[in-house]
């Protein structure tokens, strides 16, 4: 059941913009293929999570406030990352609680979805007429999984991709070890966690590790490249954009 043509405000987070533009480009392509209008406000850059996660809530508010103001009149907001999605949906209400932006934060949270969640839950779409002939495994980014409850949506989408075979890894739900600044504040723990994730993925014999969070993919790919592994990483949107 396809929804009426919507104007979707696509929030491509700062690191996806700078380092993984193809994930963002794929999201635009998929949304336009479904007949929706996509807008990407130039001033929309960052959700403010790095400062927030480190405990610098006062320093996170200026970025977050600006983001709220840009998104004020958006009909539907789609965020291209589970962790930034969690920031806007779950943590903005907490960050702004007791301030004059509290109500706005709550309203915007209710109009915000992570990309795969938007397709499946809001648009009711799983078949994107996509084709990706490969054996893949899926890594559940923690914020998407546990803050936003995203588990079945990506899998429902992958199930409709022609010639794609999905094998689940044993540690699909275990954290990859990125955790934002955690990755550089505690690099040895982050690396140990990432190694366990890579090993679990490689064990499936998959050619690709797919995820809905580019920050996880950055961590996993970083380790794989150093190890010289053959398995590749790719964002869910890029898989869905292939035809």
């Amino acid at each position, binding site marked *: 059941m396809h929804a009426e043509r919507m104007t979707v405000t696509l929030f491509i987070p700062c690191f996806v913009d700078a380092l993984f533009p193809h994930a963002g480009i794929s999201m635009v392509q998929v949304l336009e293929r479904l007949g929706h209008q996509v807008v*990407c406000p130039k001033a929309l850059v960052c959700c403010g999570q790095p400062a927030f996660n480190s405990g610098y809530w006062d320093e996170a508010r200026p970025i977050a406030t600006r983001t709220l103001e840009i998104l004020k009149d958006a009909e539907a907001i789609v965020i291209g990352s589970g962790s930034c999605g969690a920031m806007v949906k779950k943590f903005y209400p907490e960050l702004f609680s007791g301030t004059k932006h509290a109500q706005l934060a709550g309203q915007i949270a209710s109009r915000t979805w992570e990309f795969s969640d938007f397709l499946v839950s809001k648009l009711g779409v799983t078949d994107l007429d996509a084709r990706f002939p490969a054996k893949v495994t899926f890594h559940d980014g923690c914020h998407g999984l*546990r803050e936003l409850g995203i588990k079945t949506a990506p899998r429902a989408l992958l199930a409709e991709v022609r010639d794609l075979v999905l094998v689940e890894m044993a540690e699909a739900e275990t954290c990859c070890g990125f955790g934002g600044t955690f990755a550089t504040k505690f690099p040895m723990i982050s690396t140990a966690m990432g190694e366990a994730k890579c090993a679990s993925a490689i064990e499936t014999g998959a050619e690709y590790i797919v995820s809905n969070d580019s920050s996880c993919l950055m961590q996993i790919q970083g380790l794989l490249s150093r190890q010289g592994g053959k398995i590749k990483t790719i964002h869910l949107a890029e898989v869905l954009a292939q035809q």
Partner: protein
Amino acid sequence: MSSYATKFSRDARRVTSDRRLRQTIRTALHNYEIARDRHQTAFRDWQTARQAAAETKWEAINLLPQHLAEFADKLAVRGTKVHWASTAKQASDIIVGIVQARGARSIIKSKAMTAEEIHLNGALENVGYEVVESDLGEFIVQLRHEAPFHIVFPSMHLTRGEIKDLFQSALGDAPSDDPEALTMVARRVLRKKYLTADVGITGANFAIAETGMISITENEGNARLTAALPKTMVTLLGIEKILPRMADLALFLPMLATAGAGQPMTGYNTLYGGPRQYGECDGPEEFHVVLLDNHRTELLADPQQRDALHCIRCGACLNVCPIFRNIGGHTYNTTYSGPIGSVITPHLRGLQDWKHLSAASSLCGACTEACPVKINLHHHLLHNRRNAVKLKPSAREQFGYDMFTSVMNHPFVWWLGKKTGWLLQPLHNIVKRSPLDPVRAWTKTRDLPPVPRHSFKDWWRKRK
């Protein structure tokens, strides 16, 4: 950085590079997960059971004065001596006093994390008493002069070979490295101690207000023996262990077993309501219950984090935590490890010294998902981080985030940043992984993603 934080990073580095130890921990916890999932599925509605447990503990903690008073009064009516200790030192002084007053010569103890918290064994040893740990895992780490590795599985980190060598050198008795044979060695040694101990010291898992009883959960039967044979029994517990009603145990005992150990029910769940009563044929002549505060009232006073006191010490959060799995319990260097330890230790022992435990997390949320009483553990780690910064912000970090804001709130500056990153990439390749590399914390073990020439916003602008 506090010296605890420095030691933490050093120990974390050491353990994460010890592949053998990491594998031992992973194997132990993997089996737990399989069993836990099976028993959780046996519940007709695990999620609603968690909600009921969370609401019950909310009632217990938010009506604590009434419940504690009822608990203490009902115990006293049947001959139990109830003691109240505001500090760790008061608690250990009280227990030392009891032991001395009773003319005790030997003490047997069953597992009590609260006793670790107040360093009770050390206090007793300082005045000349030998304290024997009867729980097998605790017995093992006691022989090694080590702290427990995990609040429920104290010797999880050791192989059978290491335990065999330990028993050989410490006890002179280790027929083989077979777990059963080793367990029988401990059984033989400890039986002698049970029969001769004058004082038995226990902890408690729950304190039942309605009937004035403590509840002890165990698999081995060592607490049962500690509470049966010695003439004096002393139970130490935190004031937060309260449950309002005896029937609440019908929910909590199976949940504790499932979440904590992947069992439908633990081997021995025993309620104790007093010393030996008239008409009973054995049991201690004296029963003392020591109620411990030790900063719990401070945690209670923080309405946002009060629910950390709902903890039933099941260990589920430790079992699922990927950080715990990779650094092990000793790296935390404090009584309570894992996510719950990271949440409460700043309150028990000081925020500035222990905030690093809250920082050492990727906030994956597996702990919150696993907690049978629905404590919002990973969000509390965020709150600890915010509270630490409010009290003592780092000027360097503050400056860094202010700069970050300036960049992110000015699209042109952001564009400039991206272009600069792309331009500097070849330069970075030269210093990569060397001491001059500013992102060496990443590049030591991981490759950086290549910075593309055109960002998403470049592409978006061009297509218009």
